């Protein structure tokens, strides 16, 4: 490792940062038997900007009892509003460390062009949820080495989005922590809930292949994989 570093140093002028503490704003805490990634600082800065630093925490990011409806007299076609901007910031948090708010953010993203007060309220609710959970991140543990070390879940929610389309999602875990996840409105219209499930499974299978290739390149070949619904 030291020789490798000095080789790099011979080639370019570099700053050695040692063990990483931050990558693109994501805080990394390393200990002997675990690695934690979290974004509490970024979340805090968003809360501060929105004046919700001391918001009352809620247990769920989306209120299950209020159906979200498009505002038909809204500003159709215009996506450059503060709602969309804030959603984009939340989407980055989703992509980086927080799959738990993925569904809420995804649902609200359907209404960037036809906003009403309802959606702004729902967005504030996500922030309230984050306010209570700001110090939660993902922890990867050191576990006994075993041939099958990552596994995933896939599911679909039939005709949950507008336009009769279903939502599919998957998550892959390794060493007790989520490594990749995705939540998306499906591109085609599924006629059956089974069909929607198959679409979700197919997307998860593609991710599984990619993960397997990646780990294969690192020399960690995984035999057999369990994808569960």
């Amino acid at each position, binding site marked *: *490792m030291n*020789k*490798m*570093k000095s*080789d*790099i140093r011979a*080639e*370019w*002028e*570099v*700053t*050695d*940062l*040692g*063990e*990483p503490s931050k*990558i*693109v704003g994501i805080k*990394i805490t*390393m200990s*002997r*038997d*675990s*690695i934690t*990634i979290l974004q509490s600082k970024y979340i805090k800065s968003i809360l501060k900007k929105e004046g919700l630093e001391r918001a009352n925490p809620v247990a769920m990011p989306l209120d299950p009892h209020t159906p979200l409806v498009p505002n038909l007299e809204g500003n159709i076609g215009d996506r450059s509003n503060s709602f969309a901007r804030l959603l984009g910031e939340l989407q980055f948090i989703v*992509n*980086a460390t927080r799959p738990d708010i993925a569904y809420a953010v995804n649902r609200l993203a359907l209404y960037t062009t036809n906003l009403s007060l309802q959606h702004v309220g729902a967005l504030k609710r996500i922030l309230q949820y984050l306010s209570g959970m700001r110090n939660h991140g*993902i922890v*990867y*543990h*050191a*576990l*006994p*080495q075993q041939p099958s*070390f*990552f596994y995933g879940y896939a599911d679909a929610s039939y005709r949950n989005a507008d336009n009769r389309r279903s939502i599919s999602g998957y998550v892959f875990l*390794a*060493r007790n*922590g*989520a*490594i*990749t996840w995705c939540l998306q409105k499906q591109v085609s219209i599924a006629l059956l809930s089974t069909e929607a499930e198959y679409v979700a499974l197919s997307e998860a299978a593609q991710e599984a292949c990619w*993960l397997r290739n*990646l*780990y294969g*390149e*690192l*020399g*960690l070949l995984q035999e057999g994989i369990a994808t569960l619904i």
Partner: protein
Amino acid sequence: MGTWKLVEKPAGAVPINNKWVFAKKRNKEGVLTKYKARLVAKGCAQRLGHDYIETHSPVMRLETIRAILAIAPTWKLLIQQMDVKGAYLNGTLKECVYMQQPEGFADGTGRVCLLIKTLYGLKQARHEWNIEFDTNSGDKAIPAYVPTPVHISGASEMISQSSQYGSMTFFCSQQRSDL
């Protein structure tokens, strides 16, 4: 430095403009510690086919970072981060690009800068830096560091990631044999 050389402007050449970007660096207490200045070329004035052709450069996916971090504690991988200073200035420009002399440093002769290295702001800067990094680290550093397999084979991997600012961070993971 060899970043550019001053030449008489050839007929028909369209020199692109540049701009100084200044930044104030503060420490944790918010006290000014240093002033930084960077000269950037206005890449938006570059014309496809004349001033640049290929601009592609791979960027690390967040998923890959997490996938590696996830296995690091179990397989006892060392993770190190390094940052190349003025990374893009290491890339060598293949195209012939002329630039106006920078403000405050012009010699008043009306000559223009023929760029040699990829200045920040050029469209192909990230592409050329990736080639530079790939050839000079891939040939030397990496094959020399495939360690003896202890639990898994070929546990040496390097992933490069270039950020928007061009500073370069990379992971090198290698088997920690003493643990």
